[in-house]
């Protein structure tokens, strides 16, 4: 039996009376790819905020393997092994693509520990591998600011892969991408399956079909349904709440 990577237990947050996420429980197994689906305002991004420490929860707990990481500081959660990609791509714009990845390859977060020059053979090798994976080998020496939107998204994915966290949270990784770019993104994401545990928030159903194993549907801050693509598509509650009568995509 696969081990549980991430356990969310009765998680909720109260924004002055409005419960954006309310009593959500989820378990994600190691190596699993879980898609979070839901209409605008269903609480998908807020759930990611709660797991990654951006927003402090008011109830419930989050466990990474057996470690209780509820409401830790963001950088500590990240060091514990939860990486996050943002909805609006954020990379280090005034550094070259390679330098971006090198930042992510620094294993030790301390200032003094990093008062040294250069990177190990291993780190450089990792960076080259990731450059290949995200298809930016040619652009390695360009400033991140000059990348296209799609390339910026891939670079941010690359930062996560370099950091190599146990759990990767992806918030709309294909937002604003062309069809071809979306397809390449799904290839990257698929190649991460098994090695990392992934939780993906996504609207693009074509993309969801390409990557999804299990889907959790959120509605008004609560879990509405959970299952594979087929089960979700045929679930009457989901149809009613989110998909309308026409089904997915």
């Amino acid at each position: 039996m696969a081990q549980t990577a991430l356990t969310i237990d009765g998680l909720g947050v109260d924004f002055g009376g409005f419960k954006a996420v309310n009593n959500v429980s989820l378990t994600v197994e190691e190596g699993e790819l879980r898609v979070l689906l839901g209409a605008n305002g269903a609480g998908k991004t807020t759930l990611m905020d709660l797991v990654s420490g951006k927003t402090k929860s008011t109830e419930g707990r989050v466990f990474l393997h057996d470690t209780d990481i509820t409401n830790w500081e963001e950088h500590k959660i990240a060091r514990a092994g939860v990486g996050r990609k943002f909805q609006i791509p954020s990379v280090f714009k005034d550094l070259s693509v390679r330098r971006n990845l090198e930042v992510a390859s620094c294993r030790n977060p301390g200032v003094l520990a990093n008062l040294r020059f250069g990177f190990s053979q291993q780190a450089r090798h990792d960076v080259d591998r990731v450059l290949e994976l995200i298809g930016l080998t040619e652009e390695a020496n360009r400033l991140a600011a000059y990348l296209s939107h799609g390339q910026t998204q891939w670079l941010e994915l690359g930062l996560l892969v370099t950091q190599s966290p146990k759990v990767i949270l992806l918030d709309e990784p294909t937002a604003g991408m062309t069809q071809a770019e979306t397809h390449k993104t799904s290839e990257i994401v698929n190649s991460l399956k098994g090695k990392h545990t992934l939780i993906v928030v996504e609207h693009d159903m074509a993309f969801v079909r390409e990557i999804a194993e299990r889907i959790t549907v959120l509605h008004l801050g609560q879990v509405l349904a959970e299952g594979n693509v087929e089960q979700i598509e045929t679930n009457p509650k989901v149809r009613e709440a989110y998909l309308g009568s026409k089904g997915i995509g």
Partner: protein
Amino acid sequence: MSIKQRIQIAIYVGFFALIMCAPMVLDPFWLNRIAKYLVFGMLGVAVALSWGYAGILNLGQGLFFGAGAYMLAMSLKLASPTSLQQGSDRPVPDFMLWNAEPGAPTELCCITKASFLWLPFQHQWFGIVMGLVLPVAIATIIGVIVFRKRIAGVFVSIITLALVLLVRLVVIDAQPVTNGFNGLTDLGVFKIGELELDPYIVPTYYFVAIALCLVLSGARLLIETRAGLILQATRDDQNRARYLGFDVPLYQTFFFAVSAGIAGIAGMFYVVVSEFASPTFMDLTFSITMVVWAAVGGRSSILGACIGAILINMISATVSETEGFAEAWKVIIGLIFVLVVLYLPRGVAGLAHDLIDRLLVRRKAPSRHPVGVTDASQLAE
């Protein structure tokens, strides 16, 4: 080592050689002047480090400069001959007598209310150590409070600006201990062993020049480390760095403190070459002038900001002493600033960078990448 990296090292070495050769052609008056400008060059390095690399626009760098200057000046004041002529066995600063209550004993311990603070400064080395420790300590405290609270951007600038004005006010107000508005003048000569570093002699110039070379190389190497790279990452996107697991406030505080330390060292050297310390060091205009030096030289270049500081001061001095410009020189300097900001947003160093890129591209054309897309960090490859 890439060609560009070699060119950069060559430029540093060239600059070092240039300032080392200055005594061969300059008279003592100009040599002392240039020594002052080299000290301002150190301030340029400090500003570039915090503004260009940490993304923290400190509008109160004068606070650290002033702190360093006052600490050494206090020691040198006690070493001054006049301090020994106040009717006490041990030195007492002359201004304390003027500020003392009638009947107060002429002793450093109790002549004025807080004069005991001066006691340890009877040792010159205490002043020197404090000149480094105090700015770093102040910066660390500011950093821990401000950066932990995730205050960023213009708000940091406003806080630092307010702080430097506050400290300036306190220094002026505490006349019995600081000589208030007049500052500390009539200082003794700084001594290393038997060598007296009179501001107008060549060894003093070398003392400053070597210090600048060390500060420059040290700062440049510091940003070349991984920590320097991570710092630049936190500058570009704090959040992204945080979610990669870096304790952003820790990095900001560390480099803010290093920058403060450099400013403190600059303050001490300024006291050595100008023989006074005054609250004007903590004037707002001075702190902002430092930012302008860095902007003109190129804030994202350590050497650029340093050269910017030296050049602007040399131009100001020359222009202001040229007949016909004696009145108009500030307009000319202002015009240079405006033109640089408009047409050279990365300063003179940015221009040099682009020129080198263009030359290199021409040399090994055709190149895959257009000009201007490389960055300084790439030099490390």
